[in-house]
């Protein structure tokens, strides 16, 4: 039994939340999204108190099941769980039986047999979180499934925008870079369009195919033309370690065409935000000084990620018990 001192959990009303899992933003209603963001706001204030820990998930076990490597998302979930007084187990692909040929389903059923209450899954296959959610009584939180979705990243991005600009509806968000392979982009597109933002995707056609227009966003290959009209620029990481040469010829050419340089930043509105889900390639998608400048909210995103993940864990666990 924990004897650590905790702050009382804020009185949160979540009548519009009944999901035990968070596998994607796509199926969520505007009400559910707003509930998540409002709950995160309440938890953010807890993070500013001297005692940052609440007893909401005391006695529950969360498994961080990371089949694909990650540091910041895993640590953020782990800290969120600690703040909620849950017990945490970390499992990576190399330490799991997946490397011995056990299926994802069997590994997950084994975790459930140990009475894991919440499974946070990072996996290289699109749909993996939904696959587990359909088969387990435990709550399944998607921490990124292939190129499909990364819902908590989109929540922390929208949370940050709402916090800094006061609203989501009507603002213009420009997402730049590797959209094709990006789960962050897909979740952001879903969250932002549902909440009434205008979204423009920018990058070479090899990384930003036209099919994205079916998701209700604009696609352009001319970054300079859209910057003056942007309220937010969200720069996605170029995953150069896994990209082949047919997507773009070189990092130099990428930066020349799509990098946020100081000269390009001059075209932005004074109050426009610069975001990045990290880790940053300084000098590739963003000028190094700009990343550290006052209009960059990159570290606010990290802080808000903690509050958002507390909210997700709290709401999903609560729905399972209701």
């Amino acid at each position: 039994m924990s004897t650590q001192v905790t702050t009382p959990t804020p009185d949160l009303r979540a009548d519009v939340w009944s999901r035990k899992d968070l596998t994607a933003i796509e199926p969520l209603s505007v009400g559910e999204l707003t509930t998540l963001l409002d709950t995160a706001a309440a938890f953010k204030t807890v993070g500013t108190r001297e005692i940052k820990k609440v007893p909401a998930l005391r006695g529950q076990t969360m498994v961080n099941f990371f089949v694909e490597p990650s540091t910041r998302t895993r640590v953020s979930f782990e800290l969120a769980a600690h703040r909620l007084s849950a017990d945490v187990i970390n499992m990576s692909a190399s330490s799991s039986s997946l490397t011995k040929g056990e299926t994802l389903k069997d590994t997950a059923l084994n975790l459930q047999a140990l009475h894991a209450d919440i499974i946070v899954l990072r996996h290289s296959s699109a749909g993996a979180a939904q696959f587990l959610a359909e088969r387990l009584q435990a709550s399944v939180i998607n921490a990124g499934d292939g190129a499909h979705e990364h819902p908590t990243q989109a929540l922390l991005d929208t949370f940050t925008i709402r916090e800094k600009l006061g609203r989501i509806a009507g603002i213009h968000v420009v997402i730049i870079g590797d959209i094709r392979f990006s789960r962050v982009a897909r979740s952001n597109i879903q969250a932002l369009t549902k909440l009434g933002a205008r979204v423009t995707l920018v990058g070479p056609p090899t990384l930003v195919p036209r099919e994205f227009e079916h998701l209700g966003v604009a696609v352009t290959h001319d970054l300079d033309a859209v910057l003056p009209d942007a309220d937010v620029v969200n720069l996605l990481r170029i995953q150069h370690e896994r990209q082949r040469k047919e997507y773009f010829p070189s990092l130099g050419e990428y930066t020349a065409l799509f990098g946020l340089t100081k000269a390009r930043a001059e075209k932005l509105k004074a109050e426009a935000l610069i975001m990045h889900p990290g880790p940053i390639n300084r000098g590739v998608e963003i000028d190094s000084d700009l990343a550290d400048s006052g209009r960059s909210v990159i570290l606010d995103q990290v802080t808000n990620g903690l509050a958002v993940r507390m909210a997700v864990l709290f709401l999903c666990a609560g729905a399972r018990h209701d």
Partner: protein
Amino acid sequence: MTTKTTLLKSGRIIDPANRRDEIGDLLIVDGRIAEPSELRDLKSEISEIDCAGLVIAPGLIDLHVHLREPGQSAKETIASGTKAAAAGGFTSIVCMPNTSPSIDSPSVVTWVLEKAKAEACVNVFPTGAITKGMAGEELAPIGSMFKAGIVALTDDGRCIQNHEVMRRALEYAGMFGLTVMDHCQDYNLVGKGVMHEGAVSTALGLPGWPAAGEEIIVQRNALLAELTGTPIHCQHLSSGGSVRLLREARARGVKLSGEICPHHIALTDESVRGFDTNFKMNPPLRTQRDIDLLIEGVADGTITVLASDHAPHCAYEKEVEFDLAPFGILGLETELGLFLDLLVHKKKAISLARLIEMFTTEPARLLRLDRGTLSVGAPADVTLIDPGLEWTVDKEQSFSRSRNTPFHGWELKGRAVRTIVAGETVWKL
């Protein structure tokens, strides 16, 4: 010597080989179709089957079936697969060589034929691999496999990427009059694609399998069939663009043919949204536009063959992450119902007689099979069909060893009610 005589009475006899479509009786004596006039001279007991309201068709042929033996008997066996065929109305099936080991040598061909002789309840016609181990590099012993009894060549499941290898295989196969059947897939364009590349794959973040990856090989095949004179049959076409290329090639006299499978006209890529691996097949489900063009191709005679691509997989193999699951679904027991329902009843794209032709004389002519006809003296392979019978697909009733179908619970109109092979009823409803 006693004779065994069966009289199929008062059915609608549809026999495209003899341009026959009339109400009548069909006489079977000792496993062969007999002259009705022989009935007067017969002294033996006659078993009669009332066929009022039923269609008496030549036994149906499916030229695209994975029986999984040798080597993958957890998925299917020759015994279970042929039972499923019989329950679907098929008296003859052409089985694919992607087994373990693959059917790429005369000894494996002989093994399959011997096993079929002992355990199969319908006729099994094996195909041989075009290349050794279906690796797309060196020619398999095509002549020896031909002597052992293969009816066609294919590397189905795989596609020869090297056009020079394909060209020489076609030239060599031509010596034996063998048709080459091709699974049309360009590996560079398709890459790791697991579903149709389009709006849905973009939304789901699943790797896309572009239609151009099929079409480019259909066009390659048109050019090589023209160059070599050997007929090529394009298997399981999924893209509307392939139909256009096939139509153009056939119009200039190229020996190129094509088949479609029911799932490619029954379902679209929208079905993949739930990540259910029963909607994962190769080639993938495409769009409504593709469905319309495939059906148009059936209606105007560009597509000449209907087939199942019956591809059983164990439940545990399918119950994994979408991109890791094997491609393919069951087909034998649902294909006649689906094609009747969609092509004949709902879309009215073709007549019932043409549908039967596409399941009998068309595949028989393509692979020179001594089947698909009700001519006097022919083996008495007969399928009785109730084209108006309404039924519900129940995967638990399947004779297959596997259960991987996306059609469980579908309500269909029309199905086979009795399957007769060489005069013997091997299945009835």
